[in-house]
């Protein structure tokens, strides 16, 4: 769905349930046979010589059979006709194909809604949604699954609203059908927040509609009056036209225009001046004066200008809102940390239940590679848990019977059983998210640049108006003074500024999106621009996954290099992170995987190879297999151990032949980015939940002083440090990815969640980068500065126009038709300048 329509937001990449890095597509360079479903090259091992269609994997083959079997082959023609990007690998892990829990009453209660006519509907978020052809296929669901009345897909949110008759088909069958078509469904979650949001958007559109209709009609009438002025229109007609334009102006002011009065009033009550104030002042004074002038039948009316003003300002705000909503949507496509289903022991046997049905005291089984559905205490088994999203530790934590475990952590070892102590909102994960959400609510918004100048602006305009009033009163009479002062107040309305600022910000958000950075709150630009060489700011970086790769890489090897290819091939399908690292380092190529490979999730693997029985794993695994690590080998690998790397021992026929050192290495570009940041006035600091030695090593590699490297931080401590820094050094930008960073992300001036981050981090962060590494951070900082510079130029230009108009009004030569021309012309100038400047932005400008 990286189509021209969605502004380049790579939604598919986000919707994929697993990062593509986990399953690198095997590309066959010798014979390019395209998969009949996903168009990726078919690996030689999968080629079926006699078959009409070739498939790259079993998932694609089953999806193709399903689509073909339902007579929906048109999907492929449509896809070809639409000329979309290749689909990418279809994720159809078999353990996701069971949807029995979708029929559980607790699940139905939480995720579906009954309709009056006995039908039920549910919102399902679909993975792998790609392009317009997907819309066609998914909306043919009633043909695939009888009982479904309707399926409507929203491409932007990749959420399908499915309506069905529960008498005819259960939800699980619908979910399986969607899965069969290649779109694994997940519950879309809180429909309340989405409907609240939708209601807000609709209200805004209605306002724009009313304002637009008023503006158009008021302008037509005004044109008639201006022409009549030159042509000596009969007085009764002019009076009539004035009354009608009063009517239209009153509708515009009382309806859509009321937004500005409310905004100004809300600002005044909290003793804040916003841009709404000068706008409301112009609207209010213009409206009142117009009303009086129509009533007494003398003087000018400005209803056309007022209506256009309201319309343009609302359009600017609407476009900015749309752009930000789009980004929020793109970010909510992330997978939830919590699993949909879990295995629970009820009534003496194991059954599958949705997470919503769990209760404290339940006994739950968590198989290998699943995430924990609730908090609890281990009652059986021993395993390693990947707690990085919760605590930031890069090494999995070992847990055994009696240990506390937490929802959202992932079981990377063998299956365990635990007794549930807390579910849903009571889990540590939920409390952390709540904590973070509270931080967002408590965060003082920055005073936007336009609002900051609004106060001075209002004062100046009012002072000028008073001067003009008294000047003309003294020179001519009170009435002339009032007329000229009113004209001045109206033309001084900061229309160009009020329109151009949100549009410039919206353009900035769009440019960021094309670079895979989703900016949820455009205030980010101004906050980032507030830091420079003379105004230092602090950038707090989480270590795991931000500065480092977030997963181990091979950093050293001792012993027989001749068996590296063998190791790579043996680890070809390994699921353990260490196995992945070895596979990436020693590319197995196209070679067939060895038959009879046995992987132990506790950290080891045994493979029969042509050169003998190969074992790779940690010392404990090899010891269990009867292979001892001799002193000579311990000595040879000692430097690895000293340098904070973990060692994978390789044995061939029960004898150690090599050792590989694995470490979560610092990203290649991190050092350069850190230097760039320092150049731009930022002080980089590492906030990590990882152990001291690792953090110190990373700081050392990046050239950061030890005082700027904090280790062993709990999520709460991270937040406290960020708050402390905010008091000390002004602007704080927090960059992180895990749930453990969420609270800190929320309390920082700007929170930036990075690639692969947890849902909690995405939700509270102000921006999210879908590209790994730190380069997007510097890009965003540069873009922020550039956007703010364009806004300031706009300010200068629009103030020049205002000065011209105010001079004319003060001199008493400003007639309504000059005002009516001047105002849109100034807005247009500013807008086109902003578009031209930002359109040329290539990101090549220096950071400073």
């Amino acid at each position, binding site marked *: 769905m990286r189509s021209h*329509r*969605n502004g380049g937001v790579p939604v598919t990449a986000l919707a994929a349930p697993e990062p593509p890095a986990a399953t690198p597509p095997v590309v066959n360079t010798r014979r390019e046979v395209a998969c009949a479903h996903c168009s990726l090259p078919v690996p030689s091992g999968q080629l079926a010589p006699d078959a009409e269609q070739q498939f790259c994997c079993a998932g694609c083959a089953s999806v193709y059979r399903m689509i073909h079997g339902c007579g929906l082959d*048109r999907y492929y023609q*449509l896809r070809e006709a*639409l000329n979309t990007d290749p689909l990418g690998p279809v994720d159809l892990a078999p353990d996701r194909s069971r949807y029995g829990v979708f029929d559980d009453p607790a699940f139905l209660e939480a995720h579906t809604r009954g309709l009056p006519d006995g039908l039920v509907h549910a919102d399902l978020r679909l993975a792998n949604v790609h*392009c*317009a052809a997907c*819309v*066609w296929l998914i*909306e043919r669901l009633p043909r695939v699954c009888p009982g479904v009345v309707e399926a*409507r*897909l*929203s*491409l*932007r949110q990749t959420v399908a609203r499915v309506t069905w008759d529960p008498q005819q088909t259960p939800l699980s069958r619908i979910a399986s059908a969607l899965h069969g078509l290649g779109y694994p469904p997940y519950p879309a979650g809180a429909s309340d927040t989405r409907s609240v949001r*939708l209601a807000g*958007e*609709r209200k805004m*559109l*209605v306002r724009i*509609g*009313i304002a637009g*209709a008023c503006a*158009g*009609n008021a302008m*037509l*009438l005004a044109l008639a009056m201006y022409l009549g002025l030159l042509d000596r229109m*009969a007085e009764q*007609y002019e009076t*009539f*036209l004035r009354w*009608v334009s009063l009517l*239209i102006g009153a509708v515009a002011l009382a309806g859509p225009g009321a937004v500005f009065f409310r905004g100004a009033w809300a600002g005044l009550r909290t003793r804040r001046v916003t841009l709404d104030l000068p706008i409301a002042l112009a609207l209010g004074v213009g409206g009142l004066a117009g009303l009086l002038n129509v009533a007494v039948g003398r003087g000018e009316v400005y209803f056309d200008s007022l209506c256009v003003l309201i319309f343009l300002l609302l359009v600017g705000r609407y476009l900015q809102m749309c752009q930000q909503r789009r980004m929020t949507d793109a970010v909510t496509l992330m997978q939830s940390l919590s699993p949909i289903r879990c295995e629970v022991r009820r009534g003496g046997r194991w059954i599958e239940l949705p997470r919503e049905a769990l209760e404290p005291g339940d006994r739950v089984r968590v198989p290998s590679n699943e995430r924990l559905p609730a908090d609890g205490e281990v009652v059986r088994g021993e395993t390693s848990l990947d707690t990085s999203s919760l605590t930031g530790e890069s090494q999995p934590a070992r847990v055994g019977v009696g240990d506390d475990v937490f929802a959202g952590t992932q079981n990377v070892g063998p299956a365990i059983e635990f007794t549930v102590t807390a579910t849903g909102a009571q889990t540590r994960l939920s409390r952390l998210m709540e904590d973070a959400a509270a931080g967002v609510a408590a965060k003082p918004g920055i005073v936007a640049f336009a609002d900051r100048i609004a106060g001075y602006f209002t004062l100046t305009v009012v002072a000028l108006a008073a001067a003009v009033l008294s000047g003309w009163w003294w020179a001519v009479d009170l009435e002339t003074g009032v007329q000229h002062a009113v004209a001045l107040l109206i033309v001084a309305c900061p229309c160009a500024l009020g329109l151009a600022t949100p549009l410039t910000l919206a353009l900035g958000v769009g440019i960021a999106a094309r670079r895979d950075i989703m900016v949820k709150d455009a205030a980010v630009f101004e906050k980032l621009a507030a830091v420079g060489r003379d105004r230092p700011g602090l950038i707090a970086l989480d270590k795991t996954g931000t500065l480092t790769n977030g997963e181990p890489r091979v950093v050293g090897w001792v012993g027989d290099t001749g068996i590296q290819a063998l190791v790579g091939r043996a680890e070809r399908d390994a699921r353990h992170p260490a196995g992945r690292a070895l596979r990436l380092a020693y590319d197995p190529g196209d070679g067939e995987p060895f038959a009879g490979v046995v992987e132990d999730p506790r950290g080891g693997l045994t493979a029969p190879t042509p050169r003998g029985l190969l074992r790779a794993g940690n010392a404990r695994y090899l010891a269990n297999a009867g292979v001892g690590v001799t002193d000579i080998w311990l000595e040879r690998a000692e430097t690895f151990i000293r340098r904070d790397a973990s060692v994978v021992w390789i044995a061939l026929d029960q004898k150690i032949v090599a050792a590989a050192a694995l470490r979560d290495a610092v990203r290649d570009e991190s050092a350069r980015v850190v230097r760039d940041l320092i150049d731009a006035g930022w002080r980089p600091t590492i906030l990590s939940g990882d152990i001291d030695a690792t953090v110190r090593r990373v700081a050392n590699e990046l050239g950061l002083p030890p005082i700027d490297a904090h280790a062993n931080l709990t999520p709460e401590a991270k937040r406290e440090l960020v708050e402390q820094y905010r008091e000390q050094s002004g602007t704080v930008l927090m960059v992180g990815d895990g749930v453990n960073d969420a609270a800190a992300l929320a309390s920082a001036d700007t929170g930036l969640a990075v690639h692969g981050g947890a849902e909690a981090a995405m939700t509270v962060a102000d921006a999210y980068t879908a590209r790994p590494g730190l380069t997007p951070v510097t890009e965003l900082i540069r873009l922020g500065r550039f956007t703010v510079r364009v806004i300031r130029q706009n300010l200068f230009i629009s103030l020049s126009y205002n000065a011209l108009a105010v001079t004319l009004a003060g001199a008493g030569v400003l007639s309504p038709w000059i005002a009516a021309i001047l105002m849109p012309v100034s807005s247009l100038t500013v807008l086109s300048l902003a578009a031209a400047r930002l359109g040329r932005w290539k990101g090549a400008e220096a950071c400073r």
Partner: protein
Amino acid sequence: MSVIYIMIPLAIVLATAALVGFIWSVKRGQLDDLDTPPARVLFDDED
């Protein structure tokens, strides 16, 4: 010229009718999703 006493109210009534239609379509949710319907019209030649 007195025709404007009829024509202008008539024009306003027409504009109001169009506006009511717009508001109706917004409230019915026809403008909620601007991405999918343009794709959907491409398929209407079957079924």
